[in-house]
C-alpha cells in the first residue's frame, strides 16, 4: 500500500502551563517528590532483593573502611594537636579529652563520615546508575517486567541508610583513638583516664543525635546518588554530571541537615 499521498495536519504546537523553564522546574520538583515517596511505598513490601542489599552493604560499608580509618585517625590526631595550645593558654589542657569527645561525637564523627561517603559512595552510585541509564540497562530491566527501582534504588538507599551509622560509630571510635594517642604522647594520660573523661563529657542525647544524624545523612547520600543517576541524561557527559552533582548536592543537603538537627538537639538539651 502506498501512503505517500496521505496528508495530515502536523502544525500542532505543544503548549506550556507557565513558561518552559518554570514547567521544567515544577516537573523536577514533582519528580523528586515522586522518587523519594516511592521509596517508602516500596521498601516495606516484597519482593525483597536480599542479595543485592547485602552486596550493596558490603560495597558501602566494608569497602569504605580503609579510607574512613585513615581519614578519621588523622583527623583525631590533628584536631587534638590544634586544640591543645588554646586550652593550654587557659591552663585547661586537662580538659582536652572532654573537648575532643564533644567535638567528635556531636559533630565531626557524623559529618566527616558523611562527607567521605558522599564523595566515595554517592559519586559511585550516581555514576553506576547513570551509566546503566545511558546504556539502557534500566530500560532492559523494566521491559523484562522487573522493578528497576526496587532492585537498584531501594537496595542502595537501604545500604547507605544502614551502613553510614555503622561507619559513623567506627569513625568516632577511630578518631577518639587518634586523639588518645596524641594526648598520651604529650600528657602521658592513660587510656582508662582518657576514655573516662570522654564518656563523662557526652550524654545519652549525644549518642542518639549522632545516630539519628548519620541515618539521615546515609539516606540523603543514597537517595541523591540514585536520583541523579536514575535521571541521568543521555551520553557519557550525563554520567559524569550525575556523579558530580550527586556529590555536590548530597554535601549541600548534609550541611543543611547538620544545621537543622543541631538546632533541634540544642533545643532538646534545654528541655
Amino acid at each position: 500500500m502506498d501512503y505517500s499521498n496521505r496528508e495530515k495536519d502536523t502544525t500542532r504546537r505543544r503548549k506550556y502551563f507557565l513558561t518552559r523553564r518554570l514547567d521544567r522546574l515544577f516537573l523536577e520538583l514533582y519528580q523528586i517528590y515522586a522518587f523519594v515517596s516511592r521509596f517508602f511505598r516500596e521498601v516495606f513490601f516484597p519482593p525483597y532483593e536480599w542479595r543485592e542489599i547485602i552486596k550493596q552493604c558490603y560495597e558501602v560499608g566494608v569497602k569504605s573502611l580503609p579510607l574512613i580509618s585513615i581519614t578519621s585517625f588523622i583527623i583525631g590526631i590533628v584536631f587534638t594537636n590544634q586544640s591543645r595550645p588554646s586550652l593550654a593558654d587557659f591552663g585547661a589542657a586537662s580538659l582536652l579529652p572532654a573537648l575532643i569527645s564533644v567535638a567528635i561525637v556531636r559533630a565531626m564523627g557524623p559529618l566527616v563520615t558523611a562527607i567521605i561517603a558522599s564523595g566515595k559512595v554517592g559519586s559511585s552510585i550516581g555514576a553506576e546508575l547513570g551509566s546503566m541509564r545511558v546504556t539502557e540497562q534500566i530500560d532492559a530491566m523494566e521491559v523484562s517486567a522487573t522493578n528497576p527501582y526496587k532492585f537498584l534504588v531501594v537496595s542502595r538507599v537501604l545500604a547507605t541508610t544502614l551502613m553510614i551509622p555503622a561507619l559513623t560509630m567506627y569513625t568516632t571510635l577511630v578518631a577518639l583513638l587518634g586523639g588518645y594517642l596524641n594526648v598520651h604522647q604529650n600528657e602521658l594520660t592513660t587510656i582508662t583516664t582518657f576514655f573516662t573523661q570522654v564518656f563523662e563529657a557526652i550524654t545519652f542525647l549525644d549518642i542518639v543525635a549522632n545516630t539519628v544524624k548519620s541515618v539521615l545523612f546515609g539516606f540523603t547520600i543514597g537517595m541523591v546518588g540514585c536520583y541523579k543517576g536514575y535521571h541521568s541524561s543521555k551520553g557519557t557527559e550525563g554520567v559524569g554530571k550525575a556523579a558530580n552533582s550527586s556529590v555536590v548536592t548530597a554535601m549541600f543537603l548534609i550541611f543543611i541537615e547538620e544545621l537543622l538537627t543541631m538546632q533541634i538537639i540544642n533545643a532538646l538539651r534545654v528541655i
Partner: protein
Amino acid sequence: MKKPNSKIDLTQKVITIKGLTKAFDDYEVLKGVDLDLYKGENLVVLGRSGTGKSVLIKIISGLLRPDSGLVNVLGQDVDKLTPKQLDALRLKIGFSFQNSALYDSMTVKENLEFPLIRHSKEMSARDRDRIIDIVLEAVGLSQTVNQMPSELSGGQRKRIGIARTLILRPEIMLYDEPTAGLDPITSQDINNLINEVQRRFNTSSIIITHDLTCAKAVGDRVVMLLDGQFQRQGTFEEVFDTEDERVKAFYNYNFTE
C-alpha cells in the same frame, strides 16, 4: 540474501496501532502512525536516524507513553494498563536493545538468570541451568556462560541480548537496530539468528533498522517511516519500486556507500 518463507497467520493481529502521535517538546516525532503486525510475521521498520523508529517500539513495550492514538498489543491497550498488567504483558514481549543492554556487573549466566529468578520462582536451579543452556545453544554461544559482558565482542553481546529476551519465551520480539555497528559477516549471522528465532520460537517481530541488507534478509513486510508517518509499505521490492526521491535516496545511499 532473500528471506525464507514464514508461517504468517493473516487472521490474527498481535499488534494494532492507530493514529499514534508522540512529540518531545516542540519536535513531533510520530505524526499519526498506523500499523498492524500479524502472528508469525517479521515486520521491518525502515527510516533514517532520529525519525522515531525506536520511539515506536518503546511505546509498544510501555517504556514511553504516546501523546495520542491506540496501541493494542495482544488484545490489550498498552496505555490503559495498570503497572501489574503491563508487567504481565511485558513477559510476552522480548526487547533486544541497540547496544544489547547487558548488565555489566553480571556474568552471561547471571544476565540470563535475572528474569528467570524473578518470574519463575518455583523453578529449580537445575531447570534454570537447562533453560540457559537451551537459549545459549540457540544463539550459538554456549561457551560464554561464565564470561563478563566486557569480555564479549559486539556480535556476541547482541546474541546474548537476544538470548536474554528469549529466556521467557516471548510471543513478540522487538529488535532495535540489531545489526548496527557490526561488520557484514556478523550482521549476516544476526540476520540468520532473527529468522531462526522466528522459525524456532514462532515469534512475531518488529525489526527497527536502517540497514537495507538486514531489511531484505529478515523482513516478510517492510514499512518506511518518513516525516513521522509510514509512507510506504509492502515487500522489500515493492517499497523501493517508487519515484519518491526520499526513498530512492535512502536506497542508493545504502547500496552505494
